[in-house]
């Protein structure tokens, strides 16, 4: 038996190009189980491409992706079952009610409708949205939509939750609520989370951080270690030093 637990997500030598432009260049990193890992990068760093490859929207040209040790190409079905995903764009069906959105997602994972309804209603209740189960998704605020998207992503009890810039377009309070919600899932349910962002203030000092810049991984490790190793005082400074581009500092 291996003494180290299998990483929640393990990406090895991943390279992907659109024509001549390399969106990802020999990317290698892994995220530990039961931790909140932040993938930090500016717009255009390759985060969305990486996300599309992990979710098998399209296949990598080179390299490997394993989710809890399951190869995404060899065992796509088993690997995808481990995965809950919140995409950057809003993907709730606005014409359907909240519970219908959840039931549809559950059906896409082969969950019995009766069980799915019970799961969906319980999840909405926990999120304080039980009175709105029959409301159309379009009546929700941006923050509420995101919360429902997270509930939906967790309907099939995945072990790894991926969130692609989930706080984009949210106000300060909704952002804080959302981060707190996801952090509590990590703490209470031992969920593994990969949170991509370009907003540096979403990082805590003990979070695992992966810095992706122009398609390359420049640093990985705990935030406080990255700060220390780079000789900076803050993660923002560390990011600027590591990427060597002060003009393009991520937003705080």
């Amino acid at each position, binding site marked *: 038996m291996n003494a180290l637990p299998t990483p929640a997500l393990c990406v090895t030598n991943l390279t992907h190009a*659109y024509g001549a432009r390399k*969106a990802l260049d020999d990317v290698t990193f892994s995220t530990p*189980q*039961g931790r909140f890992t932040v993938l930090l990068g500016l717009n255009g760093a390759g985060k*969305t*491409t990486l996300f*599309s490859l992990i*979710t*098998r*929207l*399209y*296949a990598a040209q080179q390299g490997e992706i394993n989710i*809890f040790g*399951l190869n995404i190409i060899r*065992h*796509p*079905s*088993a690997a*995808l*079952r*481990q*995965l809950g*995903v919140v*995409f*950057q*764009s*809003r*993907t*709730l*069906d606005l*014409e*359907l009610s909240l519970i*219908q959105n959840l*039931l*549809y*997602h*559950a*059906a*896409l*994972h*082969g*969950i*019995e*409708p009766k069980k799915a309804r019970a799961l969906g209603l319980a999840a909405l209740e926990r999120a304080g949205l039980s009175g709105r189960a029959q409301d159309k998704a379009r009546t929700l605020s941006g923050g509420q939509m995101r919360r429902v998207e997270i509930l939906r992503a967790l309907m099939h009890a995945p*072990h790894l939750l991926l969130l692609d810039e989930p706080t984009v377009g949210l106000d300060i309070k909704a952002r804080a609520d959302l981060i707190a919600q996801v952090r509590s899932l990590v703490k209470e349910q*031992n969920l593994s989370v990969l949170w991509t962002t370009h907003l540096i203030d979403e990082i805590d000092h003990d979070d695992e951080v992966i810095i992706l810049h122009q398609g390359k991984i420049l640093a990985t490790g705990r935030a406080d270690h990255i700060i220390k190793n780079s000789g900076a005082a803050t993660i923002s400074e560390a990011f600027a030093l590591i990427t060597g581009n002060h003009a393009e500092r991520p937003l705080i």
Partner: protein
Amino acid sequence: MSLTAQDRIKPLALRQYLICLWGIVWREGLRFLHQRERFISALVRPLVWLFIFAAGFRQVLGISIIPPYDTYILYEVYITPGLMAMIQLFNGMQSSLSMVYDREMGSMRTLLISPFPRWFLLSSKLFAGVFVSILQVYAYLLIAYFWEIEPPSLWGYVTVLPALALCGLMLGALGMVLSSLIKQLENFAGVMNFVIFPMFFASSALYPLWRVKESSPYLYYACALNPFTHAVELIRFSFYQKFDWISCAAVSAYTAVFLIAALIAYDPARGMLMRKNT
């Protein structure tokens, strides 16, 4: 987190596949019900052709006795199968439009990250579209019935069902291929000009092919190759409880070709999605 290796790669059960299929059809049905304008326009379009165009052209276009008809028929009766196929053609294109929309909005991604094989997800989506198109055709036939357009026996309504299913699949699969080729929603208008209109007019929907042959042999060959012609003829014959094996074979072959092309287009390794989701 401590799942055994076998548990983790256990294949999905047949029942789960059925739940997934049901879920996709259910969602498509709900969306259809919520888009009343779509239903009404799907119904009004063929009715305009039937009540206005066919009535106007009744005197101009004489139809000789051709199979499957045993007697002289009214022009309205002649164009009804073409209009049934037209409903399915529009529905197929509408489904592809909604796939482009879904892709732009991101909800296509929620479908594609399901653990079921991609061919199954896309086929289910296709079936869902066919189901909706068949509902539309029967709604049209109900109205046409009161216009005294009906099959020789009520069984015609039953025998036409498999033909509608096959034609719906063919046109839906064609729509799916197109949806993978269209980069943006705005480009969809081109589909109207370059796919729907040529397919509809260069077919046996509005006039029998022998008439086309008289005026232009080249156009006749184009019509004879047009998959839509075969869809119309398959529907026409089955509505009269007859079987036209040539059109059935042609529609089956075209369906297979379009399906394979759609699956290749949405295959993650070769997919054309790649160019669009950067």
